[in-house]
């Protein structure tokens, strides 16, 4: 370690002679400008700076300075962290730290109002820089960078923007804006949907509910009634089946995938005609919170009751062995039999109820689920 430190010091000492060759003044200027943001990693900063100045002084003041001819010049690394493990990251981190210190008092925006930036993830940064940056270091660095990004845009210094650039992704996808789809001059709206490997394009026009898919009628395109329904599900749930004509092209995948891709495309095209339908159509994707919550509580109750019932059953003792066992019918006494029977009945009823109430998890069909939801609310005293 000491030898490393020594060599580093030597290098720094050598820099004077190296830079003097090209332009001494420029290097001094650069050193002076960078002094605020540059930080070295040796513990001998002050001494070294001092030594460097003294050396320069000595060189310029020496009588044979003019004759001094350096014959062999060794290349100098530009970055002082050249010999550290993560050269570039160190430089940028130091820069960010300095910037954070320097501009820490500028007014900031609340985080949700700051301009959204696509930061590089740790892996992306590693890939971009080619250094195995530690997760902890990167996290602390990116936290500083995010703090810097909150500076009010009107006061954002150029320096900070430059310093943050290595941590930003090349393309800020948050700036992407979806192209607005409009109803064209023929009154058609266009929607695209994908599902598995099927891609569907649907054009909706006001009409009477006629459907052509790849030039075929709906019954030719989909043999299953289920697929036909799911292809037009958006229109069906919104009661718009007789208000629009659909002309669609769909390719790739199987029939079910095609039907569900069409469902997406048709719904999108429908929202172009009637933007107010977007919210209820989107809601179809997931279940509302109270439903999930209720259902979970309900299921827990059922499990509890059933497990109690099972325990009640196993609590019977066999007459012969005086151990807990499943007794043959007729061997237990009357009261325990009745108790057991009622508990079992309640348990079966509840399990049956649960399986009947919620057979399709995850598929949200508004009419069906809302009805179920109502019954659930009426059952549970929550």
């Amino acid at each position, binding site marked *: 370690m000491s030898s490393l430190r020594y060599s580093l010091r030597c290098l720094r000492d050598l820099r004077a002679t190296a830079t003097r060759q090209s332009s001494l003044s420029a290097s001094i200027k650069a050193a002076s400008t960078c002094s605020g943001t540059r930080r070295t990693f040796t513990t001998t900063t002050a001494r070294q700076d001092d030594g460097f100045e003294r050396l320069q002084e000595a060189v310029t003041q020496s009588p044979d300075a003019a004759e001094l001819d350096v014959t062999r010049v060794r290349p100098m690394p530009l970055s002082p962290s050249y010999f550290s493990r993560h050269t570039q990251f160190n430089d940028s981190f130091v820069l960010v730290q300095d910037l954070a210190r320097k501009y820490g008092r500028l007014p900031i925006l609340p985080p949700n109002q700051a301009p959204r930036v696509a930061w590089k993830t740790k892996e992306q940064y590693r890939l971009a820089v080619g250094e195995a940056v530690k997760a902890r270091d990167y996290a602390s660095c990116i936290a500083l960078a995010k703090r810097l990004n909150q500076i009010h845009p009107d006061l954002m210094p150029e320096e900070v923007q430059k310093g943050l650039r290595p941590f930003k992704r090349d393309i800020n996808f948050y700036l992407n804006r979806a192209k607005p789809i409009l109803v064209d001059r023929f009154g058609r709206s266009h929607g695209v949907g994908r599902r598995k490997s099927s891609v569907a394009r649907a054009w909706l026009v006001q009409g*009477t*509910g*006629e*459907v052509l898919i790849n030039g075929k*009628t*709906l*019954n*030719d395109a989909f043999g299953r*009634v289920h697929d*036909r*329904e799911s292809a*037009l599900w958006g229109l*069906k749930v919104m*009661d718009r*089946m*007789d208000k629009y004509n659909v002309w669609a092209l769909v390719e790739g995948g199987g029939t079910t995938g095609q039907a569900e891709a069409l469902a997406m495309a048709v719904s999108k095209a429908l929202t172009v005609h009637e933007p107010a339908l977007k919210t209820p159509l989107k809601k179809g994707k997931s279940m509302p919170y109270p439903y999930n919550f209720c259902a979970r509580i309900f299921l827990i109750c059922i499990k509890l009751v059933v497990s109690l019932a099972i325990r009640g059953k196993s609590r019977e003792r*066999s*007459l*012969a062995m005086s151990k807990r066992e499943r007794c*043959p019918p*007729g*061997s237990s006494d009357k009261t325990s039999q009745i108790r057991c029977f009622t508990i079992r009945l309640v348990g079966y009823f509840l399990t049956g109820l649960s399986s009947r109430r919620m057979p399709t998890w995850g598929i949200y069909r508004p009419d069906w689920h809302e009805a179920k939801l109502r019954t659930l609310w009426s059952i549970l005293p929550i």
Partner: protein
Amino acid sequence: MASANCWRCLARPSQRLLVPASLLSTPPTPASAATFTTSAQLRAVKAGSKDDVNLSRHIRAGKNLILGKKKKRPADKGKPPASGERKAFRKRIQLSNNNALEVPGLSEMTAENIVDPSSVGKILGLPEVVLDQLRASEAFKPTQTWGLFRSPHTLIRAETVDLAKQLTDAIGKKETLRLVITGDRATGKSMLGLQALATGFMNNWIVINIPEGQELTTAATEYSQIHNSEQFSQPVYTVKLFQAIFKANQHILSQYKVEMDHMHLPISVNRGMTLAALANVTKEPEFAWPVFQAFWKELLLPGRPPIMFALDGLSHIMRVSDYRSPSFELIHSHDLSLLRLFTDALGGKTTFANGAAILGVCTKGNNPIIPSMEKALEQAAAAQAGEPIPPRDPFFKKYDERVFDALRGVRILNVKGVSKPEARALMEYWAASGILRLRVDEKNVSEKWTLAGCGILGEMERAALYDVRSPV
């Protein structure tokens, strides 16, 4: 020496003495047997009255593994269905269902209201007489869902009125209407054919119906070469057809008498005989075809009632049949004499003095693809619409000239889906019959109409009545 005891357990024979005496004799009551174990008791209950209780086996709780004894399956007591019974069950036609609700307020179909444009979109019942005639001529198909309703009713759609009008107009002018009903799968082509047959029966025409063209060409019925001819007759089928004609048209045929001398016939046919008697004169397959020819000639004489000749499954008779000639070559369907009779009539080679309607109904379910027929129908449709006639593909060499001859100058009736008011009438009928448990309103009607590919009848039935259809 073989031991009476189990080899694998180490219980000594003397242990048997420990078994309570109560076990060895009568089956004990549960209260007294519970002294030692319940296993013996269980076993005794399982074995019942058998002499297993003598404890030659070891007493062990739980399951006993008994090898070498296969469990006998209980013998099937029922008799297996006789040959043909299953098919008969599959092909049975049930025209009424007492469980279905009766729909009040529906009028019956008559010769007048079937040509009345105001009856479009109404459900009309088939009259009893016509029902019997239709049943005799096998107009009902096993795939149609008549068995869901109290009594047979049909929807009068725009095509029905159009067809009935064409039929009555042509026959009123003593012309021949040659028409092919075509359209997509399950659009109601056969049903339209049935309505046409009903029109024929109600107007007192002589109706001859071949219910399945396929039956004649798939080598399923007997055939024999006609003497001094290149044609082949299908005697058994002809006898069957004769009986159907007799049953369906008896009251008309009995009004007309034989007017020609049929000296060449192997059976004696007098001049005073009625046509009904002529139709019923033979059940001998070898005489069937000559008698049928004589019958046909009688029908073509002037002064006879108009003829309606219909065939379902047109594409099946437009191909080379599965029959083989004595030189083991495949016979073209048009060389089968009965089919030749039909194709000549459809192609306009036969002249009918009293007016006639020749109907060919296409089928799309089990359908051979016949390019000649498709092209011929395309050309006929174009000619009917006054458009330029599409030429044949010059690079396709398998066109069948006989098919083009058979379909020369026919009219085309292209059946499509029903309109929304018609669909609504139909769904209301279903709901009133108690098989559609849905509110019939604008929303539901248009939904089913759309799901059925713009009101294709079979698909509407599928979409709406999926749960209740019969498992055919």
